[in-house]
């Protein structure tokens, strides 16, 4: 049963499964854990891309917390041109839709990258724009509209979970085809090395925030599709998200920490959406 994530967009964004490999789970499409393949996922969202290369956060970038971890690369990436040169042939070859994450820098950077993508028809299937944790309504609207003006590609806007309901409407007005709810809230904790790291939550600990944000955004009934993201690990989690109004669901940490479980989940989700009553929710 195909899922249309951008029903009001001429290009559309059709997924064969509601399970998406989210924000950098497989890098730019080349870093696959054992047993995982493109066809397990409805779409793949890349790691972030900026116009210029970024060195990101000085390591350590990871702090384990109870039932999860704090994690940020600080948008570490080789820059738009390099990634496109290296990866675009791969994106072109695969059947699975590829969604590029574009992040800011100078004003207009995201729109510049979106324009370049518009020129290379058929390589990329959508754009994901993360709204920074502290962005206000005006800032978020501004960069989304700027991208909307130069691209016909479906735009997914990723909202910070704690402020998702506050920001959602403005992002839809600015041109989002779908809302990704959301980026888990930031916290602070010591790394193994004893340094205090401030970064967003990841892992199962993040899921209850995702679910709350999703419910609040779904209640606004904004007429766009919703993608749940943050801490999703089990079929129960996926089912809860779909119940609460999500059209699709992203996973990331699970792909890194337990590829075999990610594969089982992908297959279970495919069975579940065919027939929700047939699939058995997780027993562990």
């Amino acid at each position: 049963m195909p899922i249309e994530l951008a029903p009001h967009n001429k290009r559309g964004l059709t997924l064969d499964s509601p399970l998406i490999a989210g924000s950098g789970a497989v890098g730019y499409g080349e870093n696959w854990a054992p047993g995982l393949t493109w066809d397990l996922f409805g779409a793949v969202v890349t790691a972030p891309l900026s116009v210029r290369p970024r060195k990101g956060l000085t390591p350590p970038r990871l702090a384990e917390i109870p039932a999860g971890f704090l994690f940020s690369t600080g948008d570490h990436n080789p820059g738009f041109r390099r990634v496109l040169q290296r990866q675009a042939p791969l994106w072109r070859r695969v059947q699975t839709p590829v969604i590029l994450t574009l992040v800011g820098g100078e004003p207009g950077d995201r729109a510049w990258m979106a324009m370049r993508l518009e020129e290379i028809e058929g390589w990329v299937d959508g754009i994901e724009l993360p709204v920074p944790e502290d962005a206000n309504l005006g800032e978020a609207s501004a960069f989304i509209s700027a991208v909307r003006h130069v691209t016909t590609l479906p735009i997914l806007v990723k909202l910070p979970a704690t402020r998702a309901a506050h920001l959602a409407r403005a992002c839809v007005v600015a041109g989002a085809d779908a809302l990704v709810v959301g980026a888990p809230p930031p916290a602070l904790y010591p790394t193994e090395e004893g340094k205090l790291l401030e970064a967003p939550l990841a892992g199962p600990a993040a899921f209850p925030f995702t679910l709350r944000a999703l419910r609040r955004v779904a209640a606004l009934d904004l007429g766009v599709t919703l993608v749940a993201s943050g801490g999703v690990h089990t079929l129960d989690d996926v089912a809860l998200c779909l119940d609460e109004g999500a059209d699709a669901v992203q996973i990331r940490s699970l792909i890194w920490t337990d590829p075999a479980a990610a594969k089982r989940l992908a297959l279970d989700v495919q069975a579940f959406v065919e027939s929700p009553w047939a699939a058995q929710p997780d027993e562990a």
Partner: protein
Amino acid sequence: MLQIKAQLIQRKTYGVSQELRLFAPKLAQRLTAGQPVLVRTGWGLDSYLRRSFHPVTIDAESWTLRLPPSGDRGHAWLRMVPEGSELDCLGPIGVGYTLTDGARHVLCLGEGEMAWALLPAVTQAAERRLSVTLAVGAASARYTIPANRLPLAVEYRVVTTDGSRGRKGHLAALLPELLPWADAILAAGSIDFYHQLAESVQTQRGMLVQGFVQALYQTSFLCGTGACLSCVADIAGGRRRVCLRGPVFDLVDLLH
């Protein structure tokens, strides 16, 4: 890289340390000294992140991980999990030590807890009848590898800070007498020690050439596939993913 359930077939306790032998033929056959294996350390969600272990023994069907004395929650779980349990392993990660064909005199240099990561390479080199010296430095006798854990043919040298075993002082002090003899070096220690080692090699041999010293860079890993960028380090001329390029690097790359 594989993800595999390995059965815990033997637990040995050495004072406050433990060694766990894990039955996993497919993994053991691919594993080389210095390559980490990422092990889940809980039945539930805590601890969530895998712990990485450099094998201390490798044979055809099994490998052994060492639990050092530590306050880590994941290690605490591994200390308690019953024999017969299946442990979820992801590995081998990246690049391990290689015994190059030309080498006859292999010098292994290990600092503190990291020295244990050299053991499978020491054993393998001895089995190939290469002449092997293992030199370790530690804070005191209790932190050194017991001599009975080494093949008989291996020459073993110990330096301790408090002089409780072997020479008193720092491992680096042994380098002048050991370096001239060696034609390959496998090292496991801190970046500080690697700088001392590189300097000694330059002093003694005029130049540190590619292929002479292999050095293990210690860090932790999240995905092991190059996706997450959590293992990056500023080495080898840039911000590198240790899980792809390392964790065993040529010392020339590691320091430049």
